[in-house]
């Protein structure tokens, strides 16, 4: 088991390494980039950049320094907000983004699995079609369309929920809903397909032939096989929710990493955008790693 862990962790290092490398060379070599000498830069920043990026050293050495700094969690100073380092900005936004993200994942799992199970158990009934229709809607309507609609309904027309601001639970309701709707839909579809497939397995027929009640067949015999594939949803879901949070934080004006990211992109804050990309890449890799380890732990057939 331990050696499997080690192997799996080792295999995700190259990916992270590649992300950092691509980010570095993109920022260093891009025409019109911050290090392009044709563009005038304020002296103060120039000196700062000089120091942080060791611009007088050859490129490979610079790359080495950068790698070392990133490993220490230091992405350098922000290009636009001179008083902050990128790491500080990320650290500021992280609590907001992680709360949103975790709540969205939790909500998606709970509601999605519930809907999927109901649909699968009533396969081809009206309720199944309803759930699958809703799921199709949830997957199709983009979050940047859904958010304005919900703001209009709950915020403007009915005045039930705040449409911006941060700090209280009520501020999280709409953003979390917008973030989770597509994921609820995805989980519901996956659960339905997975449960239907599982219920067609010969071992479920064996369980029925043994006289087990439906409740026990579902909870003991079908649950693990049904939910294991959902586990692998977590990896892509992290990526999707991070992407979604960029939109949601922008629309609802929340102080998370996503908004820094977009502001950075719009303001050409190279170091910030780059730092966030590496950080996001790290999060996604971490989640995929976690999923694989959980998988290995839950499936007795996987040999370590």
């Amino acid at each position: 088991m331990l050696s499997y862990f080690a192997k799996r962790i080792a295999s995700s290092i190259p990916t992270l390494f590649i992300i950092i490398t691509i980010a570095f060379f993109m920022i260093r070599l891009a025409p019109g980039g911050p290090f392009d000498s044709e563009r005038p830069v304020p002296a103060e920043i120039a000196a700062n950049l000089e120091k942080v990026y060791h611009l007088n050293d050859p490129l490979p050495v610079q790359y080495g320094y950068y790698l070392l700094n990133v490993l220490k969690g230091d992405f350098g100073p922000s290009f636009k907000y001179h008083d902050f380092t990128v790491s500080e900005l990320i650290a500021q936004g992280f609590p907001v983004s992680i709360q949103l993200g975790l709540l969205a994942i939790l909500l998606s799992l709970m509601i999605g699995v519930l809907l999927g199970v109901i649909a699968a158990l009533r396969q081809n009934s009206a309720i199944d079609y309803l759930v699958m229709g809703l799921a199709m809607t949830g997957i199709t309507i983009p979050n940047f369309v859904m958010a304005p609609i919900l703001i209009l309904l709950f915020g403007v027309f009915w005045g039930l929920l705040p449409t911006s601001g941060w700090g209280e639970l009520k501020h999280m309701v709409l953003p979390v809903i917008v973030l989770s709707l597509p994921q609820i839909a995805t989980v519901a579809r996956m659960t339905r397909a997975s449960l239907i497939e599982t219920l067609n397995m010969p071992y479920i027929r064996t369980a029925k032939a043994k006289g087990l009640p439906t409740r026990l067949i579902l909870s003991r015999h079908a649950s693990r096989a049904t939910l294991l594939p959902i586990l692998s949803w977590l990896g892509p879901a992290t990526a999707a929710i991070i992407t979604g949070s960029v939109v949601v934080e922008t629309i609802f004006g929340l102080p998370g990493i996503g908004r820094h990211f977009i502001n950075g992109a719009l303001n050409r804050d190279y170091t910030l955008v780059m730092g966030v990309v590496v950080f996001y890449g790290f999060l996604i890799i971490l989640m995929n790693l976690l999923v694989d380890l959980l998988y290995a732990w839950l499936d007795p057939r996987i040999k370590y």
Partner: protein
Amino acid sequence: MMLTIENLRVDFTVDSGIQRKQTLQAVRGVSLELDQGENVAIVGESGSGKSQLFNALMGLLPPNGSAHGSVSFNQQALLNQSDKSLNKIRGKEIGMIFQDPMTALNPYLRIGKQLTEVLEVHEGANFNKESAKRRAIEMLDRVKIKDPEQRFNSYPHELSGGMRQRVVIAMALLCKPKLIIADEPTTALDVTVQTEIIRLLKDIYRKERTSIVLITHDLPLVAGLCDRIIVMYAGKIVETGTVDEIFYKAQHPYTQALLAATPTNTEKSGKMLAIDGQPPDPLNLPAGCAFSPRCAFVEERCKTESPPERKIDAGHLVSCFRENN
């Protein structure tokens, strides 16, 4: 009579997405009776409806299947009953053994759990974990599994095919059922393992007097184990009789063809019987006798009328127009 099946029909709704939905008749009016302690074999080509016949009476049909007719087991109606009332019989009064032991066990649960849960659901308040474990281990020993204590804690993938089939048999036996339905229990196994499993079933029958319905392709296999043989073709019983009657006085051309066909060894499934011609398309069954396109003795009326059941001897019945011998 322990088990009485009357005019059982099984239909499947088939939707190819191209044409309108069609009805596939997998079992077309089967009647049979089985006494306590009696052993019968059901033989017939692939697709003749053997499995679905018994799936229907156990309430195990796929979702697109439906069953009609009547079945009673010890005076209790079985067909189309609620799961709740079926569950008093399934696993307790009637045990089932399936064709493919590789997939019949849940890969995520330990063997022990899958065994003891049979007792757990059927003994209700009397269930005792410790004694259940002891009995499960005894049963594993009974079906000749080595190191039963250790195997109790194994996962299915840690066992060979033959061992898994023994586990499935042990599972079916735990509640001392009155009837065991074994659906091709040896087809998926190596030839040497096949004979061991059959020997085990014989042994169980001798000691417990449990009735066994053995569904199989393999006529020679059943000779030593069963009292009666029922031959099915295209969802109907075409001939039934004692082992001797079927082996030495077969009346139906299909039965004769089955007997004459040399068992050919295919790579995995062991012996397979090969008869000239194709089995009929279940969606386009020939009018009249379903065997007529392949029958060497076909007459004009075979192609339009269904042959009635004729009595040759007390328990020897055949559905064919041809009266020979």
